[in-house]
């Protein structure tokens, strides 16, 4: 790409929609992270020039229609089975780039088995994991990652340990597995976090090209509609409440655990 491009009316072009995104308008709620994550993911596919070699797997959840926006070959998986579907694709087409795109319910509740075993096999895929601590699509029910005390439509008094257990830090669990090569946690609510996330996506596709194995990028996200907040309120609440439980940063790089990770906060109800 040339350093500066000039549009027909003489303005300098600073960003252009990549060919890897379709013309379809996003259906996501105002302030939702999905749009940014879609955009960054497809920008990287464009920049690496791998559109014709990339196959994605969409989950069940708010991003069930991801294939309406991502202009690459896609398969829609049953709820929780995206890692298995991605495994099937990758094992048949080992030289293609394969990613799955999953929410917290899909990846960490109903699909826990498929998630853990794909990681443990060192399946050479990229898993994009959107953690917004709630079930957005079905109307704001508790997710496995819902915080203690957090109110949802199925925890009207707030999540408590006795019946619902603890927020599931599955990314920490996956980082422990020898098959996992790169495990990292990001956000996309500020320009800086978006840049960091983009670097992680680029790095993951590079690892996949080198057949290094399983890469997981968790994106700690908001859900203004599900949390019943305005987008700015949701971002602030996310920083104050989600980040302490799901601290951002690398958990594992190049197959090596990152030391000096923030400890999980003590459980309180």
């Amino acid at each position: 790409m040339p350093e500066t491009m000039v549009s027909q009316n003489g303005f300098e072009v600073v960003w252009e929609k990549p060919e890897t995104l379709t013309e379809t308008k996003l259906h996501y709620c105002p302030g939702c992270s999905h749009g940014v994550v879609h955009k960054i993911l497809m920008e990287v596919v464009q920049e690496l020039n791998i559109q014709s070699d990339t196959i994605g797997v969409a989950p069940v959840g708010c991003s069930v229609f991801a294939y309406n926006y991502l202009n690459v070959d896609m398969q829609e998986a049953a709820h929780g089975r995206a890692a298995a579907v991605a495994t099937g694709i990758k094992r048949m087409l080992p030289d293609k780039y394969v990613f799955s795109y999953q929410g917290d319910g899909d990846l960490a509740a109903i699909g826990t088995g498929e998630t853990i075993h794909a990681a443990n096999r060192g399946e050479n895929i990229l898993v994009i994991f959107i953690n917004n601590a709630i079930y957005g699509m079905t109307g704001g029910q508790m997710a496995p990652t819902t915080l203690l005390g957090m109110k949802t439509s199925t925890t009207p008094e707030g999540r408590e340990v006795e019946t619902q257990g603890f927020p599931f830090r599955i990314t920490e669990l996956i980082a422990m597995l020898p098959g996992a090569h790169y495990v990292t946690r990001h956000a996309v609510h500020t320009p800086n976090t978006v840049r960091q996330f983009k670097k992680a996506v680029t790095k993951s596709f590079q690892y996949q090209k080198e057949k290094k194995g399983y890469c997981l990028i968790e994106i700690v996200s908001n859900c203004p509609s599900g949390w019943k907040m305005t987008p700015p309120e949701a971002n602030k609440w996310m920083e104050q409440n989600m980040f302490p439980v799901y601290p951002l940063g690398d958990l594992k790089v190049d197959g090596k655990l990152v030391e000096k990770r923030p400890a999980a906060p003590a459980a309180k109800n």
Partner: protein
Amino acid sequence: MSDTRLMKGNEALAEAVIRSGCQGYFGYPITPQSEILEYLADEGRKRGMVVMQVESELAAINMVYGAAGAGARVMTSSSSPGISLMQEGLSYIACAELPCLVVNVNRGGPGLGTIQPSQGDYFQSTKGGGHGDYHLIVLAPASVQEMADFVYDAFELADKYRNPVMILADGALGQMMEKVTFKQYDPKEHAVAKPWATTGKPTTRERNIVTSLHIQPEKMEAINQHLQGKYDRVRREEVRYQLISAEDAEILVVGYGLSARICHRAVELARHRGLPVGMMRPITLFPYPYDVLREMRKRLSGVLVVELNSGQMVEDVRLAIEGHVPVEFFGRMGGIIPSPEEVLEKITQMFDRVNVKQVEESHA
């Protein structure tokens, strides 16, 4: 050059899988079919197949979904409880129209049941099995030779109709050893183009999407109508069955798979006694050979259906006979295999009843 060997049914099937050009197998061990996975893990891998033992049948069937969606010739195999776990995936595969082979070496149920042979999965196999309106194409082998031969047929039917195909065997067919001859088969001659597959989008085409999600009711109804049209075509073009001594039969015995072997012997014994008995063996369970029964019902005195279950296929026989003649059922469950003599006794009893009825009618 013919290649004849003495093999277990499961092993013969697995050998045919390799020869058919199958590229990927995803499965989980369960008795009485684990030899399929074991044979492929050894021979299949050596001869270039991707063979994966994975964490569950759920994962296996969804790997089949992904791999079939990527355009590969792929399969899984299991036995009854494992096949139950795959029903979700089979429903998605049927709607997304992905060609694949699923082998069910049926054992006795319900629940964990028994590892002994059974035909208790007839309803699940032929009527859909999972949620929504769909059908698998179902082939029912009755010998080790057919365990091998039907593999090629299954993959070709799957490609022809873009539909999952099931080989429905049972524990005895999987475990018994018989002579089997492998035919010459060049997978390249049977390869079909799959322009719908997700193999990576070149600039020359729109992206391919493999999905079963169609939120608009009009679109989803159109998808359903398309599927039903396909099943109608399968019903017209793919029915297979075998008739034995049926030309002059007054009583027709109907059985498939293992029960057909028992019925065949019982029919031979009955013929030795001079009883006019024949049999019909459905080879395709979906599509079911209704028409041959409809044609024969006018000249029969009765039908005896023999199954290793509580009476499942008998419902399809009754749909075809429509009350024209009595349809009786004999079945054993829980892994018990009836002897030909038990079936012969049922045939003899049926003749007595039919004869009594004819005498009564002549006096009336």
